[in-house]
Structure formats: C-alpha cells, structure tokens
C-alpha cells in the first residue's frame, strides 16, 4: 500500500479547519409496487430461486479532520421466487472492524388481502458481531417470507480502510440474477482515479458528470460518476476458469494521481516505466535483496567446486526451499528483514524468493525479481501499473545461456517448474532500465506417459503391468500426494480409483530426486477383462481410470477456458494374445485435430503376429481459448472418448 501518500494528503488538510458534511446521499426506502410483488417469471432466467431487483449505492469521499473515509449509502431489494431461495432472506454483510455501520433498516413486503403489507425488523434484531480479528458482520433475518415476497434492506457505512486509495469496490453480479445495479461515486476533482471493470465490462454503462459541493469549508468541483448495469445474469462456476476474479462483473478504483490547487500533479501510482525505481528503493523489496551478507558463507560453500551455473542454481534452490518454510502467504513484498526470516526459517513467498535472488547474486549468478499476479488473483493490466494487482514474485535467473523463472516455496518442486498458480500470462521484470514483461512459464507441462503390458491366457484372463512416467506438474502432484498420504495411503487411493483392477504390487521410483520423472509401476489382473459374447471375445484396452467423463458436458459456455499449462498424455498398450485366439476386429487408426494447430490426438492400432499394439497421443498446445471456441474443445474430448471406447474382437481358434 502507498502508505506514504496518506501523510501528504493529511498534512495538506490539517491546515484547514474541519467541517463535517451533512449526508446528502439518500435512497428512498419502501418504494415497492404491486408489480414488484407479482412474482411473474423473470424471462432471462425463469429458474432462478431469488432475484436481486435492485442494488443501489451512493458513495462520497469525505474527510473528518483525521482521516479520509467513504460514506456509502446502500439499498437492496430482493425478490424470493420460491422456497429454495429462502436462504437469501438470512443476511450477513461483511465489513472491516474499523468501519462504522449506521442507519440500518429492513422490511419484508407481501401482498395480503389485496394490500401491500410491510413487516419491519426491530432494531434489536440486528446483530453486529466480530467475525475475525479484522472483520465484523451485520446479521439479520427477514420475517414473514413467502414465495413472491420482496425484501428490502438499507444501511449507511463509513468505510475507513484505505478509503481514498480504493474508494468503494462494487460487485454488479451475484450468484442470482441482478435486474438493476447502480453505483454513484462522487469525490473532489483533486483526486484522479483509475477504474478497472472486470467480467462483462461492456455491460457497465458509465455516466460521468459533476456538481459543486462543500468539502472542508470550500466549494469544490466534485466529480460524480454513475455506473449502471441491467439484467446481469447469475454468476455460475465453470470448469477450467482461471479466476473468478476476472469473470465476475465488478468495478475497482485505484487512486492514480492527486492534483491540489496551486500544486502540480502528483502521481500516486507509478507507470510501468517508473515502477522499477519505486520498488527498488523500498526496504521490503529492492533494498531487501542487498542486505544479504549473512548468506555469503552459505552461497560460497554451496557453489564451490561446481562447474556450470545451472548446477549452482539447483544447489542454492535446494538449500533455500529446504530451509525456509513457506507459510502460505502470497506477497511480493517481504514481511520482515531477510536475516530474521533466515533465523526464523519461515516466511511468505517474497521473503523466500527475494532471499533466493540475493543468494544467487552472491554466488555470481544473474538474478532479478519478476512481480506478478497469481491465477486466482486475476489478470494484470499491462497498461496500468497499479501496485495492488500484484501478489507474488519470482526469480528470473540467467544460467548457462538460458533464462529460467524460479520459485523456492516448495522443497518438492524442481527449480525449473513453476507453481501452477504462477502460470498467468506475463509478469513484470524489475531490473532498472532492462525492465520488461516476461512470459510466465519455463517449459512446464502436465504430462504423463503410460505403457500397459498385458498378457491374455487361454481362459481369456488379462494380467500385466502398468508403467507410468509423470513429469513436471504430474510428478510434483504425485510427490505431494505421497508425502501427505504415505505409500499405504497412496496405494489405497490407487485401489479406489482403479476398481476394475486387482492390484498385486506397486512401486514408485525417483520420489526423492525431484528433478527426475516419477515412475509408477503397478502389477495387475483385470477383473472380467474379456466378455464372451457368443463366439466373440470382446475387450476394451483403456482401463476405467483412463476413460471417463468429460468436464465439458455443457452445451454452451460463458467464460474462457484456461488449461494453465500445455497437456501431453501418451498411452501405449501392448497385448499378447495366446495362440488359441485370433484377432478378428480392431479399432482403426485416427487423427483428431483440435483445430487451428492448438492440439491433436493420434490413435494407432496394429497387430504383429500374436501381439496387438495400440498407441494414443493427446496434445493440447494452446492453453487459452475464448468462450466462443468452446464447441471445438467439447467435440475434441468427445471424439477422444468415443475412440477409446472401441473394442478389440477376438475369436477362439478351431481345435
């Protein structure tokens, strides 16, 4: 947070005497019509259990002599369509502990004997209670709720946290339809804000205007912006969405600059050009990487005797990831002096990765920080360098002629495999004049390679071995799972996934060597492998855990599809058929293309003597698809599952 900017503004305003502004934000309560209460089906979404009829907020930036705050007056009207929507009548509104909530009221409206009946909630039935050290909530339940009831609540809140920096974040979309959502924001023209509208930004209509109001005993020109949305559909989760943050329709404000009368414009938020200098000056970022003298001895010891830079990087990466425990907190600024982190052996992602950079530099390796936003945090804006959008930092390392992005928060992950959460387009390299955007990836894949060797006996029973190579993310996931569940737990898990198999034996190789692929070998019998159908013997070579259901079953899609990392899966099945049987039919080879060079699936099936050899190679090279391209992804998977359901038909040879 730009804490130092607060001081600048407060010093300016403390010279001027305090005048508290009367609340001029008002939204009338109780304006419910007969039409509102008719409970006619809402055409765009007749299946909705409840509908937000209107959500209106009026927010003004104010100053009380001590601090800035935003006064928000909000009024919400909800219609309960059917009894499944009754939960929407139990309200819990979250706030920060420092916010001041007042003027709250709520009523249920019903039609009774042809008249509109209002049942209000008595003041004593509103509860404000702490929900954590920094948050509290306003809780109340609407009385007398029926199908068709309209519930209305309104309140005024004085938002205290970083009010001048962020004004009032506002969500236009909810998990039920919103018929109308409107936010009116006003603030003195001294303040210049950047707005980020995420989700379906085109649905948000902005009507800017201005008026004159009194702010601190002075007549000030006040900017008034009205943001308006109508018939916003309910937000529904879909599989392979990178971040709800990007998809939910909402608005965020960020103070970009301040321009007081008589002073020049002062940028609050830097541009990408000036960002590097800003951050490198900070104690919890740039300066932290220079105060690493305590690491010198370790750095030299670890890198001594090693020839290549990559070897040095691996060794130092192993040291830091093994020594400092990541506490799960994602940040790009350190939480304490790095020496303290080193002694405590615990830190956030910045503590760890900036320490990594410091140590690499001491070993003579070029390393610089890349700041980024993680996938669930949403995309960064390449035009606006708002500090608040970043929440992570990685090391950008140059070793033996190659560049790597390195993260040291997990001892199980190899140095050149990023956490999946970091695969989010591009991050910003902070390196003085060489600062630029870099793609957030090394060459990670979600990859598996499976070889299945089966032998069929004279009774048509199948047994054999499944050998799977897991690389990059897949390998990391296995290592993680085994660390948590142990080998017995992992075997339990295998047995419940592969219910069609009797697992006799299993082994996992290379669990400890994090740079190598994990190799899993399972010895199996397939239960009822071959079906005798009259004179034919039917067998499908793709076992239960392999074939399955598609995540893309829905007919349409609202949000883009994001796989994160490219996918590459290979399966080879070799079946040895006894001489007492012959192969009559086998699946034909096929190539299925995802289209536009984004990926392909190759299937081959050949016989050679008494052996059947099948191979299937699935690739998805492009990781991001717009929602409009959904149907080709759906068809791709459907085609693959269809192919892998085909049968091998055998017959018994005449004696």
């Amino acid at each position: 947070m730009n804490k130092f900017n607060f001081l600048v503004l407060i010093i300016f305003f403390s010279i001027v005497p305090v005048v508290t502004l009367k609340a001029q934000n008002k939204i009338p309560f109780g304006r419910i019509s007969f039409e509102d209460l008719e409970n006619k089906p809402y055409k765009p979404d007749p299946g909705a259990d409840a509908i937000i009829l209107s959500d209106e907020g009026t927010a003004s930036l104010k100053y009380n002599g001590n601090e800035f705050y935003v006064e928000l007056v909000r009024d919400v009207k909800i219609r309960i369509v059917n009894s499944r929507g009754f939960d929407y009548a139990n309200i819990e509104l979250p706030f920060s502990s420092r916010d001041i909530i007042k003027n709250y009221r709520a009523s249920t409206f019903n039609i009774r004997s042809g008249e509109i009946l209002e049942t209000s909630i008595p003041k004593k039935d509103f509860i404000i209670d702490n929900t954590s050290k920094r948050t509290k909530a306003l809780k109340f339940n609407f009385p007398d709720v029926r199908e068709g009831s309209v519930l209305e609540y309104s309140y005024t809140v004085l938002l205290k946290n970083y009010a001048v920096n962020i004004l009032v974040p506002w969500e236009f979309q909810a998990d039920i339809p919103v018929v109308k959502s409107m936010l009116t924001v006003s603030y003195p023209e001294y303040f210049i804000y950047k707005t980020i509208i995420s989700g379906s930004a085109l649905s948000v209509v902005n009507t800017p205007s201005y008026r004159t109001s009194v702010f601190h005993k002075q007549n000030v020109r006040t900017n008034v912006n009205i943001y308006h949305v109508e018939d916003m559909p309910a937000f529904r989760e879909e599989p392979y969405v990178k971040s709800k943050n990007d998809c939910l329709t909402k608005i965020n404000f960020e103070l970009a600059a301040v321009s007081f009368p008589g002073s020049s414009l002062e940028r609050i938020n830097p541009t990408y050009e000036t960002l590097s200098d800003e951050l490198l000056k900070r104690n919890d970022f740039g300066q932290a990487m220079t105060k690493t003298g305590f690491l010198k001895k370790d750095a030299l010891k670890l890198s001594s005797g090693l020839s290549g830079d990559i070897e040095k990087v691996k060794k130092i990466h192993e040291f830091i990831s093994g020594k400092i425990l990541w506490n799960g907190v994602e940040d790009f600024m350190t939480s304490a002096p790095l020496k303290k982190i080193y002694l405590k052996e615990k830190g956030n992602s910045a503590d760890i990765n900036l320490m990594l950079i410091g140590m690499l530099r001491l070993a003579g390796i070029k390393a610089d920080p890349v700041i980024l936003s993680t996938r669930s945090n949403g995309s960064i804006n390449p035009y606006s360098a708002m500090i608040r959008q970043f929440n992570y930092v990685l090391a950008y390392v140059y070793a033996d002629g190659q560049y790597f992005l390195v993260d040291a928060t997990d001892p199980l992950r190899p140095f050149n495999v990023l956490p999946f959460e970091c695969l989010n387009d591009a991050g910003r390299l902070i390196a003085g004049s060489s600062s630029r955007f870099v793609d957030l990836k090394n060459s990670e894949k979600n990859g598996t390679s499976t070889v299945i060797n089966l032998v069929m006996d004279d009774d048509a029973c199948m047994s054999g071995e499944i050998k799977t190579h897991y690389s990059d993310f897949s390998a990391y996931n296995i290592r993680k799972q085994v660390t948590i569940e142990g080998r017995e737990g992992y075997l339990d898990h295998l047995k419940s996934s592969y219910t069609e198999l009797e697992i006799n034996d299993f082994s996992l190789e290379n669990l400890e060597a994090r740079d190598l692929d994990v190799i899993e070998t399972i010895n199996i019998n397939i239960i009822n492998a071959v079906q005798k159908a009259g004179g034919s013997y039917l067998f499908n070579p793709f076992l239960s855990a392999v074939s399955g259901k598609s995540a893309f079953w829905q007919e349409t899609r609202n949000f883009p599809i994001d796989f994160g990392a490219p996918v590459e899966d290979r399966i080879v099945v070799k079946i040895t058929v006894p001489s007492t049987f012959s192969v009559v039919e086998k699946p034909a080879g096929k190539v299925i293309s995802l289209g536009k060079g984004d990926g392909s699936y190759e299937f081959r099936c050949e016989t050679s003597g008494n052996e059947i050899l099948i191979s299937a190679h699935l690739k998805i090279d492009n990781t991001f698809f717009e929602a409009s391209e959904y149907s080709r992804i759906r068809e791709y998977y459907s085609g693959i599952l269809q192919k892998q359901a085909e049968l091998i038909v055998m017959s018994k040879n005449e004696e």
Partner: protein
Amino acid sequence: MAAITSNVFSQLYPFDSIPDNLKNRASAVVRTEQCLFTIKGPGNAVMKIKKAVTLLNENATAYRLLQIMYDKYSKVSGIRGMIYDQKGNIAEALGPSDVFDMSAISGGTFYSDDRLKLLYFPIYKYPYTIEYEYEITFSSLLNYPSWNFQDAPDVSVQKSGIQYVVPSGMKLRYYDEYLKNPVDSVILDNKKIYTWQEENIPAYESRDVSIRPVYDIPSVNAAPLDFEYAGFSGSMRSWKEFGNWVYEINRDRDELPQSEIDNVRKLVSEEPGTREKVKRIYEYMQLKTRYVSIQIGIGGYRTAEASAVARNGFGDCKALVNYTYSLLKAAGIKSFYTLVRQSSVSDINKDFVNNQFNHAILCVPQAEDTIWLECTSQTYPFNYLSSSTSNKNALLITPEGGIMAKTPSFKKEQNLIRREGNFSISTQGISSGRMSSIYSGHHYESATFRYAMQSEDEIKRSLYSGMRFNDLDISGVKYSERKTENPSAELECQLAIKNFSTSDAARIYFSPVISVQDYFQEKPVHLKVVLASVSCDSIAYNVPQNYVIEYMPPDIDIENEFGRFVCKFEQEHEVLIFRRIFELNESDITAEKYNSFRAFINTIAKADREKIVLVRTGG
C-alpha cells in the same frame, strides 16, 4: 492414573519417539489427550482438557484451529497453547491475548448466547506438535462429555483418556464400546473416580464406497442420573422421567396471538375429520414459516415462544414444532413434541437414557396411522418424514412424561426408482429417445432435492452426473410430483446420447444399462445398508435397419440374504427389451460376510458391463 497435573508444559513431544505403526496412513498423531470432568453437583461441573497433537502434513490443518463453544451456562478459561518443533523444543507460546471470541451462529436472535472462543495455531515445518489446554465451568448440566478415542481415520492415537470425578450421593451411568482396557474405578476422599484410558490406536484405511462403511470407534458414553439445567431439576432414571423434564422446561410456550387462533379455526371449520384438519394446519404452517438453522450444539433445550414464530415467520426445528403443536392445540387436536436423532447412519441407544437427540419433530397420535410431521420443510408432503428420521427410536414428550416410540419407515418395495425408456440406436453411435424416472418412498426425497424448482440447466447437471454417459444432449425436461402421504416424483426427458455404441465393419456393440455398479475391493470392511430399496429399469432399444441382434447376454436371476438381482433380455421383432431389477435389503454386513456380499455385487458389476452385439444383415 492421577488427575491431570498443572505442570503441563514440561513435557516434550519429539517426533522420533512416535512408534512407526502410528505413523502409517496418519496425517496426525494424538500424543496425549486427557479430559478431567469433575462433577460438583447436579447442575455444576468443571471440565479440564489437555491435548497434544503432532501434525505430520497438510491434511492435519484442521487441528490448527481450536474452537471451544460456550453459552449462558458455561464459562471458558485458562486457554493456553504451545508449539513444539520436530525435536520437541518449544517454538512458540500462545496465551489469552491470542484468543478470539465470536458468535457461533449466523443471523437470528433466538439463541445469540451460543458463542465460540477461537485459538489459531500458526504453521510450522512438518512434523510439529501443538498442545493446548483449557477449562470450562458449567453452571447447568444436561450432558456429560462422551469420549471418542479416535478423531478420524487418518489420525492415530498414542494415548487418550477421560476421567470422571463423582461426589458421593451422585451416580455416574455409562456404557463403553470397542475398548481394549476396562474402566478403572476407585474411591478417593469420599468421591468415586472413573478412569478410561486407551493407547496405541493406529490410523485406518477409510473406504470410499457407495454403501457406507461402519467403523468401530472406541468410545465411552456417560450420563448423569440426576441433573439440573437452567434452574430446572430432572432425572434420567427412565425415559419417562427424562421426558418429563423436557416437558416441564418447554411447557406454556404455546400462546398464540388471537389472529392466529382465528386463522386456525377458520382453516379447520370446513374439514370433516381430524386427519384433514391436521393436514390443513400443517400446510398452513409450511406456507407461513421457514427454517433458520440457529441452534448448534450445547444448550438451548427450550423452544422459543410460539408467538415469536407467529410474528417472525421463522424458527429452528424446536420452535417450528412447538408452533405447530400450538396451532393444533388451538384446533383442539392433541400432539406431542418428539425428540429424535437425525442421522443417515446411526440411531440412539434405547437402553441408555441420555440426551442423544439432535432434532425435533411432531407426533399426532391417532387410533390408526399416527401422523408424523417434519416441521422444518416447506415442501414435504403431509405425514412424510425424511429418511434420516425414519425407523428411529423417538421420545414423545407427553404431560405424563417421556414415551419411547418408533418412527415409521417405507418398506423396501416402496423405496423404488423405476426407469422406463425407449431409444433408437443409430449406426453413428448415437442413441436417442425418451426416458422417464419415477421416484417413490425415500427416493422421492432425494429427487425433490435434485430436481424440484430447479432450472433446466441444474437438472441437466444432476442427470449428467448420475448416468454413465459422457456426451449427452438433454432436452424436453419435465418434472412433476404426486404429493400424497406416499408421494412420488417423475422426471421425463429426451436424451441424445453420443458415444452410445461402438462399431466395426459388420457389428454394433452397446451396453444397455443406464448406471453401472462399481466393483468392490478385495479387502473386507464392515458395511451397513441402512435403506432397503429397489431400482427397476425397463428400456426398449430399437435396432437400426439392416441389423439384427446377434448376441444377448444370458439372463440372470439371483436372490440371497442381501437382496435380489434380475437381468433379462427379450426380443420383440426389431426391438430389444432390457430389464434390470436390483433390490438391496437392510443389512449389517460384517467383515465375515463381506466376501459373499462382494461376490454378489461383483456379479452385478460384471453384468452391467456386458455388451449386446448387433450384426448387419445381408442387405
């Protein structure tokens, strides 16, 4: 065993001192867990808890948050926490300033006394040990602490124990299950001390099967003989006496505003018989109120006033039952507030008088066909109980005290899912047609949960996950209900199933089943079928032109102690008619019986995977 000493922090918990067998399959190891429950009087006790758990990995994260519930009749004190590293050295100490206090409920005004004290332990490098202790002083007692010696399948236990100190003149009643060590009881200073201690309990494999496994967790259940709660004295000498206490604490809370009484009188004035009157009043209550889950855990045995529910239109299960009781009373109909244990797996122990209940329903006794009402549902038909409250021992709270009764349940044949379908198979592997499913008995309940008032999109989602097909187009969805005392729900839809069949040059292969039974693993486990039910499929498949049926699997008809499985294939011209009946009886399948049960299930799993073969004719 001596009582818990106060010198708790001199102990260390090095990781290496944990025996290897306790580390297998475990995400955490309980090093020690001790409870000292000192009873001072019928309404007075002090509970001291001390627990040390070594966390082995991220799956043990839940232990990092200590939550202690309390209310008007209990006070928490002396919360202290400690963290030890792998070697057993102290890493951090937590005290009262780290404790956070908040309400235990969301919204609502009836029971705002329920609160929580929270202590959050920060993360450290695994393995590390957290240790905590605290004390609760009770000024009202209804329940004595019960004790499960093992928290979860993936948590092993080095040592766990509970000690009850009972003053002379008072009696401790108890029963225990699956323990290795018998209870130890001594008399000291005129007090009787009962101690239970178990050691070395390893973690076990928890199975993910469609039929619920039964794990025999070692436990102790204790209860008072005489007790005092909220100023009311009571006894657990018999269900009658306990019921009497519940009656006393809840009496005279049935006053209704005059407008309500007038409403009731008007409602029933046109109805001839009692049954119809009760139905009208129940449906009136369903329309007027909704359920708000306010009550959690300890305390609150007393219902809110009926007038409050009349005014607000919401309440928890007790309040809604009491409100309905009051409405019936205004119509001159007698009914009983009834306590039951709502659970899909277990029931109360009828032979041990104790507060084992977690739900309230209403019983309206009739000469024939007593009426039972679930008052928390706005949608259930009249006289319909959820499966989790059916076939349970229930305590009727009458003016003469408590009377044990049994809630009714549907018979196996009434719990029916009947599916009918008519499909045409194409040569491109697509099967399209119509399907209708009728759900009755307890299956009606799950059908309404999945389909009633849902958008077509939501229904498609439920259908997709319930069937074995991976590429479905669903359209023409129609859902309807027949809301009688033995209700049913019907779902109809049009399906176009891609990837339905595979083919080669001359033949088409397909499987006629809608859902497939999974194979059961080899290792025996104790299972329980709680709900007897029947699923019955009758699907007609129209064979494409120029094809005839070459192979149909043999018919199967098995009947045994576990149930019945029938699989029949018939041919009528170019139509293949497939019939499948799967009946499961209510059974307790012990580890000894597991293999024969598994053989039964695996026969079905095999049959469900058999394919039918069509062959192209000369043309």
